[in-house]
Structure formats: structure tokens, C-alpha cells
């Protein structure tokens, strides 16, 4: 909310006369403008000698305010957007695709929670490989635990492209692997910086070409960034968590990306593990999944905790090969 003084440089009509007129009525910033009674202000302005200029200035400020909120959409617009842009991305894993009716949906944030060594990173790497190969899309992998393994990605790509266990051509492999970008971040502020840069990059791509290359953002794991700040005195930790998720949701919706974040679990009632990060986290992701692994094997169980259009409680099994 800028002060009217600062708007003067951009809109010369808000000259010092208008500013002192407003100041007399206790209006210094755009926020004050919104709070005060506009009708009495307009009535006062009409009684002033330079009433036309003042009316123009008032309209100018209102115009600036109108330009700042998101455009109104009706149901038809939303339906068109959903059909044209918000497709599903296959994860490469049949059981998971079946459970999610196709895979990760673009425009939604999916959370994958599970105890340690339950296959979350493996699933993230598999999804990254599949999206890079099958959907020819860019993948942004934000890694907080040094667990991004390029060798594993290469193995997955070989499995996906040539099931007859031949080697993939190096040139094709290079092209696909070049579309997976990995960042290592170790605190939540660095993650904000990365997302901020990503936003400007995506804005630029849309400006130049009308479409962006990236399809998927993976954050493995977001809980290790949030746990050090959550719960201390004051609600700053929770505020940062909420603002991180709202930024991710905004990026997902505006640029048609799918977002996958991983979470760890803590002990719940009766010793059953429940996802970490507490009650206020539960409302933030669109889709929530709970993963577990059968001891010592490659079989994984996943159950659906929350989904906007599928009943929760469904479960599926899948295998990730070595």
C-alpha cells in the first residue's frame, strides 16, 4: 500500500494540492483511501475550487486499485482453463496413477508423507524421470537432504525408455537430463529466493513465447525446511509455512505446474505414524498421500488422505524396481 506521495511520480495528477486535500481528511496512503468513506470524499471534492482535477485524481487512484486484484472468472472460464491447461502428468508408477486417476494434476499441490526410508525420494526421482521423458517438460527439483541421485535418474530413464534393458542413446539421455534442474537449499529463505527467481523466469517465458517449459516442481523434503522454525514463540514459523504454500499454489495455478512436496511422519495415537507439520498444515496441500513400505522389499503401499475429487481412504500398491 503505497503512500499517495509515492504514486505522484507515476501519476502526476496526484499533485501536492490533492495530497493536502486528502491529508486534511486523514488520508495518507492507498489503504486509508479504501477505508474512508468515498462518498463523503467525493462530495467534499465537488465543493472545492478545482473539483474536476480532484475528481480525476480520485478516479485515478480507484483505477490503480482495480488493476491490482485478480480478474473475475466465471464457471465457463474455469472449465475451459481446466480442460485446456490442467492435465494430469503420469508419475511412471501404475499403482499411483491408478489411485490418482491419471497422475499428478497440473495446478495442484500434492503432498507425499511417509516414515523414513519408505520410498518418498525414490518416488520423486521416478516422477521426475517420467515427466522429463514422457511429457517433455522441465522439472525443478529442490533438494534439502543431498538425496538427488543423478545415477538413479539415469537408471530410471533407461528402464522407462528401453524396457528390454538396452542402453539409451547418450544424446537423448543428455537432452532429457538437461531438463531436470536440481537446487540444493538448506533453509526456507533460500527456497523463497529460488521460487522467486523461478517466477520471474516463468513470467519471462510466457511473455516471450506464450507458454512455459516447466511442468513439475518437486520439493524433497519441505518438512525439513519448516520444522526448524515451526512452534517457536510467535507464529512466524507458521506464517512462513503458509506463505510458502500460497506461493507454490499461485505458481501451480498461473503457470500450470504440478507441485509435489514430501513430508515426514511423527508418532500418532496408538503408534500409527501420522504426517508431521501439525494441524494447520493439513489444509494447505490439495492432495495428501501416505506412503509406507513393506519391510525389506520393493513393494510400497500408498493411501489417499485428501483429494478434491476422489473419496479418501482408497489405497494402492506398487513396486519400484531397482
Amino acid at each position, binding site marked *: 500500500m503505497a503512500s499517495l506521495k509515492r504514486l505522484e511520480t507515476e501519476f502526476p495528477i496526484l499533485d501536492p494540492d490533492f495530497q493536502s486535500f486528502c491529508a486534511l481528511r486523514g488520508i495518507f496512503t492507498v489503504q486509508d483511501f479504501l477505508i474512508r468513506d468515498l462518498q463523503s470524499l467525493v462530495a467534499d471534492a465537488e465543493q472545492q475550487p478545482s473539483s474536476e482535477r480532484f475528481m480525476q485524481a480520485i478516479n485515478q487512484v480507484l483505477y490503480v486499485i482495480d488493476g491490482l486484484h485478480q480478474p473475475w472468472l466465471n464457471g465457463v472460464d474455469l472449465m475451459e482453463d481446466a480442460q485446456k491447461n490442467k492435465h494430469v502428468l503420469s508419475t511412471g508408477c501404475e499403482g499411483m496413477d491408478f489411485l490418482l486417476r491419471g497422475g499428478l494434476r497440473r495446478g495442484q499441490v500434492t503432498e507425499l508423507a511417509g516414515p523414513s526410508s519408505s520410498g518418498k525420494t525414490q518416488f520423486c526421482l521416478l516422477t521426475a524421470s517420467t515427466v522429463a521423458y514422457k511429457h517433455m517438460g522441465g522439472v525443478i527439483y529442490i533438494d534439502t*537432504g*543431498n538425496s538427488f541421485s543423478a545415477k538413479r535418474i539415469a537408471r530410471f530413464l533407461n528402464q522407462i525408455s528401453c524396457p528390454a534393458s538396452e542402453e539409451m542413446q547418450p544424446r537423448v539421455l543428455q537432452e532429457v537430463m538437461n531438463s531436470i534442474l536440481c537446487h540444493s537449499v538448506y533453509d526456507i529463505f533460500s527456497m523463497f529466493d529460488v521460487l522467486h527467481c523461478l517466477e520471474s523466469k516463468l513470467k*519471462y517465458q510466457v511473455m516471450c513465447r506464450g507458454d512455459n517449459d516447466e511442468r513439475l516442481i518437486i520439493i524433497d523434503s519441505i518438512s525439513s525446511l519448516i520444522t526448524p522454525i515451526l512452534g517457536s514463540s510467535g507464529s512466524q514459523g507458521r506464517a512462513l509455512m503458509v506463505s510458502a504454500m500460497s506461493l507454490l499454489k499461485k505458481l501451480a495455478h498461473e503457470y500450470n505446474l504440478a507441485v509435489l512436496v514430501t513430508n515426514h511422519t511423527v508418532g500418532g495415537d496408538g503408534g500409527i505414524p501420522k504426517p508431521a507439520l501439525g494441524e494447520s498444515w493439513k489444509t494447505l496441500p490439495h492432495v495428501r498421500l501416505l506412503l509406507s513400505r513393506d519391510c525389506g522389499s520393493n513393494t510400497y503401499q500408498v493411501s489417499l488422505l485428501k483429494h478434491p475429487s476422489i473419496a479418501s481412504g482408497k489405497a494402492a500398491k506398487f513396486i519400484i524396481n531397482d
Partner: protein
Amino acid sequence: MEVGRLPISAALKGKLVSAGYTSLSLLSSLSPSHLARDLNISENEALDILNHAPHDGRIDTSGGHHIISGAQTAWDMLHEEELLTRITTSSVDIDNILGGGISCREVTEIGGVPGIGKTQLGIQLAVNVQLPVHCGGLGGKAIYIDTEGSFMVERVLQIAEACWDDMLANNAISQNVHAGQVGMQPKDFLENILYFRVCSYTEQIALINYLDKFISEHRDVKIVVVDSITFHFRQDFEDMALRTRLLSGMALKLMKLAKKFCLAVVLLNQVTTKYAEGSFHLTLALGDSWSHACTNRIILYWNGNERYAYIDKSPSLRSASAPYAVTARGIRNNVSNCKRIKLM
């Protein structure tokens, strides 16, 4: 509101918002004295805030190569991973399941019951990292952080002497002998282990915060062994929420150290019992919230009379176990005394 993303205190954020600065673009063309006057804070604080605000407006217009600074493509990382050398554990079986040894740029957690050989393995790695690259080491120094007091210098000397004998035996066979390495005596191994003794959790956290500066001055450190990481956090901690925050913060700092200076971080951990699915299991201490703080996890356990190492968590290695033995010469392969034929 975008100023919520700046790493500054909540009081300063409140002052920024009430003065009308809610988005970062408003801060971009401001001078520190102007900001200080507006917010009624000192000029140093204003300068601090402006330094944290990212520099907007510099969108990458160089067409083809749209890489955000600090990112690497998976293809580049693949080549880097192939070039990365590993630290041998002196047991060929364990090295095999680890893909060559303990890898750098990763945090490896090793846990097991008391007496299984965790400290022995830690000492062996601290000695092995000093070996030249062709012998399985990295030619670097080691930092050993001891929280329990289980570091025995005489044992280190014993292991170093055994290592030195092995190296001589190997060099006698091969013709290429570096003059520098032949000059290494067993006592030199002791010189290259930097030892810190930590007596409380605050000291531990302070030390890990200090390691960043320390390692930038001692660039030849290639491994940090912490024995054991959980000791001071297990007893007498009243505030569990604080413990979780401290531990996760510590885990992130260690990850950052491993990546930034390209060294291996080895954390030794104790075990505890957990009640799950109707029975008691042995599981690593500090619970689920700590268990995601490492990149790889190796669990040491007894199988009959033999010691085994099992890979519990790894992004790229298969789950496998290997036997090993703790001998007077350090960690070595398990030479089974059993006369029965082993079924493969």
C-alpha cells in the same frame, strides 16, 4: 505479503508493514537513510534489510540458457557423481555394498547397539581419509567430534600402524611410489585428526555452527565424524518441541557443510526400543523426526556371532547386508571360522 519472506526479525517486519512497505519492489530503489527515517530504526538495520531484499527486475534475457543461478542439470550432476571418490572402510564387503565406500557430499548415519563397532568404524574412517587416493582415501584431514568420550588415542595409533603396514605391503608390489606418501609415519595420521570434545548440547550446536568458518580455513578436511550425534539430546530435555527444532536445524547445517565443502559427514547414533505393531523393535534414537536428516543410513547388527552392516536408506544403492569384523588392526572383512559351506 512479500516482506514476510525476508530473513529478518518479526519486529522489523511489523515496522515495515505498518510503514507501508508490503512488497519487495518498493524496497528496491530506496536508500538506507530514507528507510531508517521512515521506520525509525538505525541506519545499520536499514542497510541490513536492504541487503536481504532480492534485486528485482534483472530477468535473464539471454535467450537460450535459462538456468537459475545455483542450479545444476541432472546431466552435469551425473558426470560429477562419476568423478567423486569415496572413502574406503577397509572392509571390502562393506565397500561393495556402499558402491566403493562412504561418499562425499552426503550425510551418512551409522547406528547400532552398543559394542557393535560404531566408534571403531568412525576411527577407521578418520584414519582412512588420510590415505592417498590410489589407496582408497582422499588425502585429507579428519574432524572427530566426540560427545561420549569414547575416543581412545592408543586405539587410533594401533589402527594407524596397521594401515601403514598395509600401505607399505601394497606399495612394495606396485612400482609407482609417491615420495611424499612414503614419508608418512603412523604418528602423522594422528596429526591429521582434529579432535573436539563436546560436553553439552549447546556446545554441540555451537561447534556445528562454527564448523563452517573452521573448515573454510582448513580446506583439506575431508570428513567430519560425530560420535555420537544424539547423546546430549536424549537425556533431560524438557521441551520436546525445542529439541525437534534444534535437531532439524542441526541436520540442515550438516547437509549444507557436506555439500558446500564436498566432504563426507558421518554421524554415529545409538539405538532405542520402539513399540509398534504390537511388539518392541530396535530403532535408531531420536525418533522419526531425526530419521530424515541423513542421506544414507547404515545399521549395524548382530546375526548370531557375526557383525553385519545393512543399508537401510539410500537414494541410489540397493538394500544389502555385508558381514564385517572388528580386529586388532581395525575393521576388516569377516573371515568366517565356520567349516560349513555357505549357501549363496
